[in-house]
């Protein structure tokens, strides 16, 4: 069991009337890549700045390494931050930027130059020491900001949307690099992002935030497969929602009548805790449903419908299929394997699905 490095205990932050954080509790483990994911204004940056020490708590407690951080200013915390704007000091060279935080460590000139060199090597900018920092590209600035923070070997590296200023190609490349770098240095990373794909790709665990609170904290797989609420499910990827009514507990689990699909028995793992009432909603991801192109293809369960929209993506085709007896269409994604046809709008389709992929919502 890995150690808890950061403990957030009902952390609150108010800006006057605005309640930016409404009681956030979470534990962040030593050495993990942790992401804060949520829509704009949900309090991600506020939480990150609270951990960094730029904002005081309005309530609750924050411990780093078991130590209460109340009254500990940002410059005394074992955290370092990579800012969204990178905050590279424009009047200093690349080497001076990276060595900035080392000056207080009382290293000799040579030891310092060595550390700076190693940090720059680590981010792939070896030999850039004397470059003027304003002559760098976006990706290079990002790397300098990383090197500048990592050279201090903090316990926690905080990153506020570090990739949002980069273009798509570079962003995807940096996502992979950042993840590699984190494994290599073994430092705890806390990343703020509003890009769900980015969070899924990079993180060990993700906290999904809405309205100043954490809605769900789980690994990417659990988050994707078993979102606890419709809101989380909608925020991460695409999910189809179908009305359902809950019956009693049967031999194979909870019996649920799903509109357009019929009766299923759901495992307790597929149901939220503390659920009550009979009328509810179930969710199914697009890739857990298939279109059965010829009659010999088998599936756990089969439903009938007609294709109402086709979107061709090259490697994938997305179908909107209106199931018989249901008004709203469901989205189904199919890989375009060799020999597999693409259906036209209006065609009839047999839809294969599996109750095991279903999630029941409150």
């Amino acid at each position, binding site marked *: 069991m890995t150690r808890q490095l950061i403990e957030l205990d009902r952390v609150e932050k108010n800006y006057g009337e605005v309640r930016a954080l409404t009681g956030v509790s979470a534990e962040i483990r030593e050495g993990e890549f942790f992401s804060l994911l949520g829509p704009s204004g949900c309090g991600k940056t506020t939480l990150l700045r609270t951990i*960094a020490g*730029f904002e005081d708590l309005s309530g609750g407690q924050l411990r780093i390494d078991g130590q209460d951080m109340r009254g500990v*200013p*940002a*410059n005394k915390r074992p*955290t*370092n*931050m990579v*800012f*969204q*704007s990178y*905050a590279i*000091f*424009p*009047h200093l060279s690349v080497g001076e930027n990276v060595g*900035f*935080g080392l000056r*207080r460590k009382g290293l000799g000139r040579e030891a310092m130059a060595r550390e700076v060199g190693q940090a720059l090597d680590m981010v792939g900018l070896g030999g850039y020491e004397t470059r*003027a*920092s*304003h*002559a760098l590209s976006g990706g290079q600035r990002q790397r300098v900001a990383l090197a*500048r*923070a990592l050279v*201090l070997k903090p316990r926690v590296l905080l990153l506020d949307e570090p990739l949002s200023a980069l273009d798509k190609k570079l962003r995807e490349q940096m996502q992979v690099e950042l993840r590699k770098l984190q494994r290599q240095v073994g430092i705890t990373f806390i990343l703020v992002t509003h890009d769900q794909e980015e969070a899924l790709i990079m993180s060990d665990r993700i906290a999904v935030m809405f309205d100043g609170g954490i809605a769900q904290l789980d690994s990417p797989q659990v988050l994707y497969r078993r979102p606890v609420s419709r809101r989380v499910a909608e925020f991460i990827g695409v999910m189809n929602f179908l009305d359902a009514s809950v019956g009693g507990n049967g031999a194979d689990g909870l019996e649920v009548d799903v509109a357009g699909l019929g009766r299923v028995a759901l495992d307790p793992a597929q149901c939220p805790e503390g659920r009550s009432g009979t009328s509810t909603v179930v969710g199914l991801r697009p890739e857990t449903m298939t279109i059965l192109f010829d009659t010999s293809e088998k599936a756990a369960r089969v439903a009938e419908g007609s294709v109402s929209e086709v979107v061709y993506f090259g490697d994938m085709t997305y179908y909107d299929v209106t199931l018989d007896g249901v008004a709203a269409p469901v989205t189904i994604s199919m890989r375009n394997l060799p020999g597999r046809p693409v259906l036209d709008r209006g065609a009839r389709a047999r839809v294969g699905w599996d109750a095991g992929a279903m999630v029941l919502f409150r």
Partner: protein
Amino acid sequence: MKGRGLATYAVAYLLFLYAPVILLPLFAFNDGTIIAFPLQGFTTGWFVQLTRIEALHDSVFNSLWIALTTAVLSTCFGLFAARASARYRFPAKGGIMGLIMLPLVLPEIIVAVALLVVLLQLGIDLGAWTVILGHVLICTPFSIAILNSAFLSLDESLEEASYDLGETKWSTFRLITLPLVMPGIISSMLIAFTISLDEFIIAFFLTGNEPTLPVYLWSQLRFPTKIPIVMALGTIMLVASLLLLTAAEYFRRRGVARTGAKDSGGFL
């Protein structure tokens, strides 16, 4: 033709602007006491005479150190006020900043008379320091305006980054903030220095028996024979201010190049 009309206008405008200035060196080297054409002949005599007038030297010295002190003080005050206005929120901020900036549009004669009345009531002797007081009052708004824009264009996360990397608030100010707003500080000093150097009304009211250069020059204009000397002095000041402006622009451009900011155009 529209183009020619505009060109004529532009030429006439520039002539009106600079012809009097060009007359200055012309008559400074003219061998005659009357300021009129035709020119009499070449002489450097007026410049030689300049070096012999004790009272003039005193007034130049007075003006210089008054201007320098004013530049330093108003830039310091400007730094504090601009910093506060750019970074902090406090009650009645708008009103307070408005009152600080008011001297910018207040007629100088009002400032001068009001100060004079108050100083006399308080029984304070007039002299260089009272002039400095008045000049700081009118220069500080300019300093604030210049420094405010310098602080506003400074990314706040740069200071946070330095603090985050272990520096204190003060060392952050010294290592990050100060170097980055330095072009603003230099501009502010130059503007305040220039305003103070040629300010007349306040200096005239508050100067006591230590006249500044403008006040001294004004007193000399009553003697027509002294006018060529004044012209010679004017020529020296013209050259000096050109050099100063060139230096200022050089430093500004160097600052822009160093921080890699986009050159949004300076004074020159």
